[in-house]
């Protein structure tokens, strides 16, 4: 009998432990009171990324809180985009989502379609102050879902190419940088010294692959977002570009959670001559280059058949289900954060694109471009910007693509077509 009851207790404990896995949610404590004691409307704002980008968010929120006395915003750091999304979703389900948060632009669709974010169309229509035409048209592709506005461009980026020009000079390379895939391969080969230094250290990452596919003249997904399109001739060319370089040893391709950080370390430590990364890293990399004592230049991503780059970064969104007062407050906050002055501030502080045309033309930015021409590359490159896929199941598709590409990189014997076809088959099953 005693044993039996012990067994029962154990079974129950077991059930509980297993249940924790299924219903794990993030109990983020936050003030839910609509109004604080001093009568201000309290808002919570969640953002991704630390370092310079985090400081920028905190500074802008501070500016907002000081600029008026009706609304008080609390900014909270939530990790990477993936972590931010997961936490927002969990908090939404638990009924204490932040009023304003960021959506990485490929996730705008998921959040909007599942009803977590607020349709902002009517706010724009009823607001005479905001001039939507001032937002860079190249960045608006990921703001609309089913023709309704769900997010305003905030910290937006494109990938750009960074080059260690000190090393390039040593290697006898032209400092104008590679402009085509062929030249890019030549540069990479010239940087490779067989002694640990390679042309580039690259994480297996969907964003760069999207860039290569677009440059090859293809696309990652079909226009309706119902099927993948990377299992094409263009997709194969794009994959082969870095697969071949990896096999030749001119590019170090790494997998894993730390691959991005590692690529950056390799570049900063002079173990790689070139680096693909978001323009958002510009300020930070310039600072690191100065500490390490090398010169840094920025370039367009090399072109294939076409000169194209995906855009990236985050849009500001409002979560749904807020009362009128909070909606207005959240809208005021979003408007402030994306206004010309703040856009210019953020762009200078981090290297993110000035998402407003007026910000790019402002004296502040023009002076900066004069002083540090590295900042201008991403802005110029934006002419070639394409939107990212926004299908509802895209995060899962990305996981499949990364897995299969990793398999292809690690095992040279699998034909490229097979890698892509396997990925496409799995991805299409998910999209159905």
């Amino acid at each position, binding site marked *: 009998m005693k044993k039996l009851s012990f067994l029962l207790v154990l*079974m129950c404990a077991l059930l509980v432990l*297993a*249940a924790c*896995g299924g219903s794990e949610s993030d109990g983020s404590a936050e003030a839910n009171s609509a109004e604080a004691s001093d009568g201000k409307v309290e808002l919570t704002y969640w953002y991704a990324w630390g370092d310079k980008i985090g400081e920028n968010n905190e500074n802008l929120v501070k500016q907002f809180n000081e600029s008026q006395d009706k609304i008080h915003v609390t900014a909270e750091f939530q990790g990477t985009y993936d972590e931010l999304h997961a936490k927002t979703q969990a908090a939404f389900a638990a009924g204490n989502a932040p009023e304003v948060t960021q959506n990485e632009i490929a996730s705008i669709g998921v959040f909007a379609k*599942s*009803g977590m974010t607020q349709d902002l169309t009517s706010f724009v229509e009823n607001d005479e102050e905001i001039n939507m035409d001032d937002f860079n048209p190249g960045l608006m592709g990921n703001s609309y879902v089913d023709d309704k506005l769900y997010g305003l461009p905030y910290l937006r980026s494109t990938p750009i190419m960074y080059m260690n020009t000190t090393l390039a000079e040593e290697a006898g390379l032209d400092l104008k940088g590679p402009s085509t895939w062929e030249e890019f391969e030549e540069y990479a080969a010239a940087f490779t010294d067989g002694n640990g230094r390679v042309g580039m250290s690259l994480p297996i990452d969907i964003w760069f692959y999207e860039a290569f596919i677009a440059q090859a003249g293809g696309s990652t997904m079909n226009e309706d977002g119902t099927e993948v399109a990377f299992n094409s001739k263009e997709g194969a060319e794009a994959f082969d570009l870095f697969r071949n370089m990896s096999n030749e040893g001119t590019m170090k391709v790494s997998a*894993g959670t*730390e691959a991005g950080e590692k690529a950056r370390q390799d570049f900063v430590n002079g173990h790689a001559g070139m680096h693909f990364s978001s323009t958002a890293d510009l300020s930070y990399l310039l600072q690191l280059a100065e500490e390490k004592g090398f010169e840094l230049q920025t370039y367009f991503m090399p072109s294939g058949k076409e000169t194209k780059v995906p855009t990236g970064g985050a849009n500001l969104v409002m979560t749904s289900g807020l009362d009128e007062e909070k909606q207005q407050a959240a809208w005021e906050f979003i408007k402030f954060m994306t206004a010309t002055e703040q856009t210019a501030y953020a762009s200078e502080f981090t290297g993110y694109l000035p998402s407003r045309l007026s910000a790019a033309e402002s004296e502040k930015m023009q002076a900066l471009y004069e002083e540090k021409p590295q900042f201008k590359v991403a802005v110029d490159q934006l002419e070639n910007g394409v939107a990212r896929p926004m299908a509802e199941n895209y*995060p899962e598709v990305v996981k499949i693509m990364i897995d299969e590409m*990793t398999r292809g990189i690690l095992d040279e014997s699998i034909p490229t077509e097979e890698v892509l076809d396997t990925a496409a088959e799995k991805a299409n099953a998910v999209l159905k």
Partner: protein
Amino acid sequence: MAFAKVQLDMEEKKAERQGFLSWVKLRPYAMIFPAIFIFCLFFIYPIGYMIYLSFHDWNFVSPVKDFVGTSNFSYLLSDRDFREVISNSFIYTFFTVFLTISLSLLLALWLNRGGTVYSFMQASIFSPHIISLVSVSMLWMWIMDADYGLLNWFLNLIGMESVMWLTSPEYALTSLILVAVWKGIGFNTLVFIAGLQSIPKDLYEAAELDHTPPWRRFLKITVPMLSPTLFFLTIIGVINSFQVFETINLMTAGGPINSTNTFVYYIYQYGFQFFKIGYASAAGVILLVILSVLTVVYFKVLSKRVHYR
């Protein structure tokens, strides 16, 4: 006493008059109600809800939960990734538990004696247990870094090739097992030492009088007397290992190519990254079933061999 008895008798008579809804009959239930209520609210309800969700297609937010029957389960079972998840979980659990238990038993036998050196060793071996898993993961990611890590530096020093500890599908799971064993050994050793110290000394003295060789003493006295401890540690180890999450989330994110994806991480991925809570719940139900079956089998098979005093 007599007074109480009289009162009880009276109450019982009243109870008979009022039928079966009397206080006397309800009292035991009322007494345990708080405990049962909390148990149901936090244990039974979530499990029931998980099972309910596993038959639905839901994204956590939309007001509509589409009933999809058993299609979540049939999709799961036909998913190659999920089969990998199951086998990864079993491999991880088996080796983690086996290595942790056997190494800590050896350590416990060695360290089970007085003296400053031994108590210092006991404390040192226990220290990983009190470090949070997040810090442990960060520490080991640094140690296991393929290019700049301490472990590869050491391997190179003794003339061996670098190993891609966390970034190759062949080694990643092994590396995670290594970390789990390193982390788990301290606690297990401590419990074993406590178990060893509770074995009556006279048993060993009697054995010594009979000139029983040490290994026979180990097998015939130590192991049987330790069996409740062994049993406890194994079952806790199995359950914990099946639910490993933090190290996987931080160190490998289930990769490369799914090679370290285990149950709870898979559930997290589908629930919170792909927004498919029904599908994640179905995986949760399967985990529940596997753990229940394992536990019952374990009790049935092994409890007979456990020596309770």
